[in-house]
């Protein structure tokens, strides 16, 4: 056994450790430790046990190290949970608070939601200071990121609805209190982070220009497609995307980033390598912040960044290594996303599916669908792979799956590499010369119209989706174990190579 262990490379050991820690953090939800002191004592004991064993029992060290890492994961989750657990506050009481808007306002039909970090408790318990509160108020006047406001209202805890745990949902954003129908007044402006302030300004102006160029629902759709804004897309269109299994195109994800990076590469072909790398990383970071630091965008951007880095140093980077590392970082930053962020789960499963399953589908399609253009075969195998990998989670959370998804994806995905660069071109021109932007907007409109038309028509089909209820974790585990075994079997049989970020 130990002979085998010595064959493992450094990076593989690293991955295993990361995975064990993630597992530990995952199970931390079920093994509850309610006292910080206990956590500290445990941590010290662990270090001692580790030192003793590494002195006397060298052979077993690895196993103990694994155990300790797992245990650290458990402790870390509990420590984090205690850290963010809200202080006791008299709920349902009228409060008056002052705080800074730390994220862009979320504008709804007639209301606006603000995330406010409390700096001053005017008429409330001081416990609330430095906590985050979700404030709902009338749409006008509009507030911005970095504004300091004073507001009055009744402070409450978010509710659990029948089909949606609002409390859990908000907890992952570190929000435990809400104030509905607040009365607010502006105290000061521009007090946020200077960089964020400017990026959000650019975002707001971009979104505005798109709204001036295109009619609804195309403007909202495009704002979702390239700026990550999901508000304003009419419910019937969202439903159509869900029913046809294409809602991933309105959430910016790996596909979008891959398209952007590809065009970036073509554009910078003749530029010096180092500059391409530095500008690329800067651009990706900018885009991440611009689109609101969603897990799918962050994941895809780090992946793309690693790709640029690997090219820069002339080495190959394995997709899975990078992926696990990203997951590790994101979970470390906020362990709650492991349980409460469906987007996080889906986005990682989808990429893993594409990495491991698409080579199998490619084999199949290359054999039997030879007459189809390669790009369409690639789309088909990626869609199938992602869908198989994410199916149980989708059923668990949404109670339905789409069966015509591959067909619809096949029809609309080829439009993305055309519409995304065109939209960016239109957006850039909207700041320079509005007439040129208007001309481009006609082309953009045609393609968007096509995408929405196709999804709408297909969603009307009776067979487009099946409703299934599934809630047992045993069934889900069983599904994934079988899936892993199948992948393992076929990989052995066809000697499929590991995927590198190079190709």
């Amino acid at each position, binding site marked *: 056994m130990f002979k085998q262990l010595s064959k493992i490379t450094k990076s593989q050991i690293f991955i295993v450790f990361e995975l064990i820690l993630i597992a530990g953090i995952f199970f931390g939800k079920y093994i509850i430790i309610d006292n910080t002191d206990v956590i500290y004592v445990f941590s010290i004991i662990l270090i001692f046990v580790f030192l003793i064993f590494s002195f006397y029992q060298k052979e077993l060290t690895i196993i103990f190290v694994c155990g300790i890492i797992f245990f650290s994961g458990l402790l870390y989750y509990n420590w984090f949970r205690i850290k963010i657990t809200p202080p006791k506050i008299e709920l349902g009481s009228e409060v008056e608070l002052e705080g800074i808007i730390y994220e862009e306002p979320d504008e709804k039909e007639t209301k606006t939601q603000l995330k406010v970090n409390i700096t001053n408790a005017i008429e409330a318990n001081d416990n609330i200071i430095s906590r985050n509160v979700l404030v709902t108020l009338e749409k006008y*006047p509009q507030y911005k990121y970095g504004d300091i406001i004073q507001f009055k209202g009744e402070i409450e805890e978010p509710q659990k609805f029948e089909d949606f745990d609002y409390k859990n949902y908000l907890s992952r954003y570190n929000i435990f209190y809400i104030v509905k129908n607040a009365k607010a007044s502006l105290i000061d402006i521009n007090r946020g982070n200077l960089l964020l302030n400017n990026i959000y300004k650019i975002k707001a102006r971009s979104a505005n220009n798109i709204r001036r160029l295109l009619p609804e629902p195309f403007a909202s759709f495009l704002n979702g497609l390239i700026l990550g804004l999901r508000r304003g897309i009419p419910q019937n269109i969202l439903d159509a995307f869900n029913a046809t299994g294409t809602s991933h195109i309105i959430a910016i994800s790996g596909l979008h980033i891959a398209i952007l990076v590809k065009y970036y590469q073509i554009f910078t072909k003749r530029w010096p390598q180092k500059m391409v790398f530095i500008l690329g990383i800067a651009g990706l970071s900018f885009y991440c912040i611009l689109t609101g630091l969603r897990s799918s965008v962050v994941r895809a951007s780090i992946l793309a960044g690693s790709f640029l880095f690997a090219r820069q140093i002339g080495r190959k980077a394995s997709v899975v290594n990078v992926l696990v590392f990203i997951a590790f970082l994101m979970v470390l930053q906020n362990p709650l996303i492991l349980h409460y962020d469906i987007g996080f789960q889906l986005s990682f499963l989808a990429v893993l599916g594409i990495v491991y399953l698409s080579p199998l589908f490619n084999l199949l399609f290359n054999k039997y669908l030879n007459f189809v253009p390669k790009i369409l075969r690639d789309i088909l195998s990626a869609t199938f792979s992602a869908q198989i990998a994410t199916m149980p989670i989708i059923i668990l959370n949404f109670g339905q799956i789409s069966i015509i998804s591959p067909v619809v994806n096949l029809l609309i995905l080829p439009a993305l590499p055309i519409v995304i660069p065109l939209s960016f071109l239109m957006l850039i021109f909207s700041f320079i010369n509005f007439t040129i932007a208007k001309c481009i907007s006609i082309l953009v409109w045609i393609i968007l119209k096509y995408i929405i038309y196709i999804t709408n028509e297909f969603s009307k089909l009776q067979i487009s989706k099946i409703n299934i209820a599934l809630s047992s974790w045993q069934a889900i585990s069983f599904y994934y174990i079988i899936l892993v075994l199948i992948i393992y079997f076929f990989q052995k049989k066809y000697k499929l190579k590991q995927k590198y970020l190079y190709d």
Partner: protein
Amino acid sequence: MIKNKFKNKKNIITKYILGFLLIFAILVWALVFEKPDNNLNIYFLDVGQGDSIYIRTINNIDMLIDGGPGSKVIYELANAMPFYDRKIDFILLTHPHSDHVSGLIEVIKRFDVGQVILTDATSSSKDYLEFLTIINQKNIPTKIVRSGDEIHLDNHTKFKVFWPNSSYKDKSVTNLNNTSIVGKLSYYDFDVLFSGDAEDEAQKEIIELFKDELDSEIYKVAHHGSKNGVLEEFINIINPEISIICVGDKNRFGHPHQILLDNLTKQGSKILRTDANSTIKIISDGQSYWTKTRK
């Protein structure tokens, strides 16, 4: 070899040209399908509990009367206007209540607006102030109208203002509804009366001032059919063939009121409602007219 290369290049160029022609063809067809007919089109938009009416003349001059609550009007306008048209020539605000002004904020942000028409009755409500701020920011010319004024949309289509008959500047107004712009849109022999939220008091005075001019084929019922605007005499003088009530489904005010519905039926007018019929479209060639409803 060189010839071959040349041939390849030629091939690529042909492909580009073909691609371009394809896009051009799609474009032309898109424009053809979006081409407006040679009629006056009036849309009573389904914006919920509020008023919003979009008018488009044969010369493609357009006017939006009120914007309803929320921003539903944006989505409705997208259906009524051709996709390339991002300009609205006239926006008319009857009075500064939320269910008339709110939607206009988003409209003004998104469209190029030629002129905003309103009265000098003001309100301190948040959305009305935002509306004024944005008009200022975008430097849009405004015009305050009084009874007798005429707005010429194009050579054949005009909007004549019947109300208000006095200035509200520096006056305290007890009921903003009675400051509503009331007026008649005429296209050759076809007339539509728009009455904002004007209630009985205002209706009485309008009758005194413009008794002979009120007669219209279509009547946009005052104040969403509230019981405060049901003056029987007013309806008799207008003598509408179709009355349109802009009202939200299951609204909390209980609009429209039964007395009004009875009065309209007694008068022999057909009733169309945005809650039951959704968006209502009236098309006229200047002599006759016909209606299309979404539901």
